[in-house]
């Protein structure tokens, strides 16, 4: 493929979304879609610009972003650590795994009433829910990744005199990495989902709060703006994870340039 053709190929994926926005703008402009139901894209951009100028937009995005990151770091960190432990040690798995599997079957969003009773509507509640939601995909995929590392490679490492720490860093961890990335991307999706729900139900700041407040004043453009920001943040997180994946798994046949 030539450079120009490749560039054109990269642009193709943007055709449909751009077309949808153009059609939306057109239908709004001719009055087919009433502004109370769905404001025109230009109105949404205008609302965003206003909120950007008075500082509300940046503040709320930052608050949501911070909650997401902290919750992800806590839940993902614990999930990763337990996944490694239960993947590497049968004893640890016997003690912990069945309990964790039981807890996993509780939808974490069902805990919202309880969490509000425990923590009120301050930061702890949101971070707790995000951490809980993120924990399981990371835990399960890390454990699965370690478990499915090629036993023949481990045997090779042992016969070549690798120490336990060398075995971990050179064989177990890189071998589990593809599966860990699956968990990571899945967890990022859950992270935003949990945050949206939590912020919509119980919050006094953040994008979800911004949307709910706008609803009370019938500011449909701000509601649509909030939804679009969530979509954008989600896409950003996923793209970052994919970039990381491509770099860390460059050895994997699935990621090699043909």
């Amino acid at each position: 493929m030539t450079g120009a053709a490749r560039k054109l190929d990269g642009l193709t994926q943007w055709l449909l979304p751009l077309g949808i926005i153009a059609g939306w703008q057109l239908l709004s402009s001719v009055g087919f879609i009433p502004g109370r139901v769905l404001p025109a894209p230009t109105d949404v951009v205008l609302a965003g610009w206003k909120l950007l100028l008075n500082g509300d937009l940046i503040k709320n995005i930052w608050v949501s972003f911070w909650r997401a990151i902290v919750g992800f770091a806590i839940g993902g960190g614990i999930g990763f650590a337990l996944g490694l432990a239960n993947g590497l040690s049968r004893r640890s798995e016997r003690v912990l795994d069945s309990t964790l599997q039981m807890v996993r079957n509780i939808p974490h969003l069902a805990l919202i009433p309880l969490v509000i009773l425990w923590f009120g509507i301050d930061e702890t509640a949101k971070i707790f829910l995000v951490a809980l939601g993120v924990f399981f995909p990371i835990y399960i995929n890390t454990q699965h990744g370690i478990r499915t590392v090629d036993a023949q490679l481990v045997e090779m490492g042992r016969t070549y005199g690798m120490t336990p720490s060398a075995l971990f860093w050179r064989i177990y961890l890189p071998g589990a990495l593809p599966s860990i990335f699956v968990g990571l991307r899945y967890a990022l999706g859950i992270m935003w989902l949990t945050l949206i729900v939590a912020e919509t139900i119980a919050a006094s700041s953040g994008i979800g709060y911004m949307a709910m407040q706008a609803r009370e004043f019938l500011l449909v453009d701000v509601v649509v703006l909030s939804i679009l920001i969530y979509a954008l943040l989600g896409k950003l997180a996923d793209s970052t994870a994919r970039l990381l994946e491509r770099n860390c798994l460059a050895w994997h046949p699935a990621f090699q340039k043909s």
Partner: protein
Amino acid sequence: MTVHLLRQFDDAARLAPGAVQHRPSRGLPITAQWVAKSFGDKHVLRGLDFHVHGGQFVAVVGRSGCGKSTLLRLLLDLDQPTGGRIWIGNENEKTDRSAVRVMFQEPRLLPWASVLANVEVGLGANRHSGEARNRALATLREIGLEDRRAEWPSVLSGGQKQRVALARALVSQPRVLAFDEPLGALDALTRISMQRLLERVWLDQGFTAIMVTHDVSEAIALADRILVIEDGEIGLDLRNDLPRPRRRGTAEVAELERIILDRLFRDATVGEDA
């Protein structure tokens, strides 16, 4: 007269500096004393007793399930015998692990490490020094894959992967090299060129080689001595003094092959007739 001259020439070649020489002193001896292994009621090995001199090339031949791979696992300390003993080097001295290397049927390369880094795995703890890198590069050059050093193993062919695995085994200059059907998964032509490569490095480095294989012609092409294992016991212990490099299809090779195959199929023929 001609024969005499040839012999003189041969001697001169052997003594010439730089010529390929076999140094038996480098290889460590292997001793098995009535070594036995059973898994529950199943007696896989029923007492093997043999001694391999340092620098010898031994092939262990047998039908599948005869316990030849188990023997190798016992030798490599991957499993413990249920009876008897097997050791490398001196009986009461623990042999340094890096002196014993193994080549598996699969290459078992780390897919996330470059070809060069995979060879450096063979150097164990010393692998981060510059000297280690140079040794790994030198070994790659010896097996003819130096220009592929930066690539991932997944882009190599089966034969190339197995050559990298050989380099990994050779880089620590082992004194015993064990092969577990290392060429079993390769196509016929790649096998032959790999056999030549194995013979060349063995002659060059003088390690003790013990190769488990079910391919009788491969055993004849490479080994000084062929152990045929039947029902967990040594059924046949053959010397193979054919001059190297050995040519395929000569009468001596065919005769040796016939003896071994007859032995291996002694019971099977009866079974098939019945």
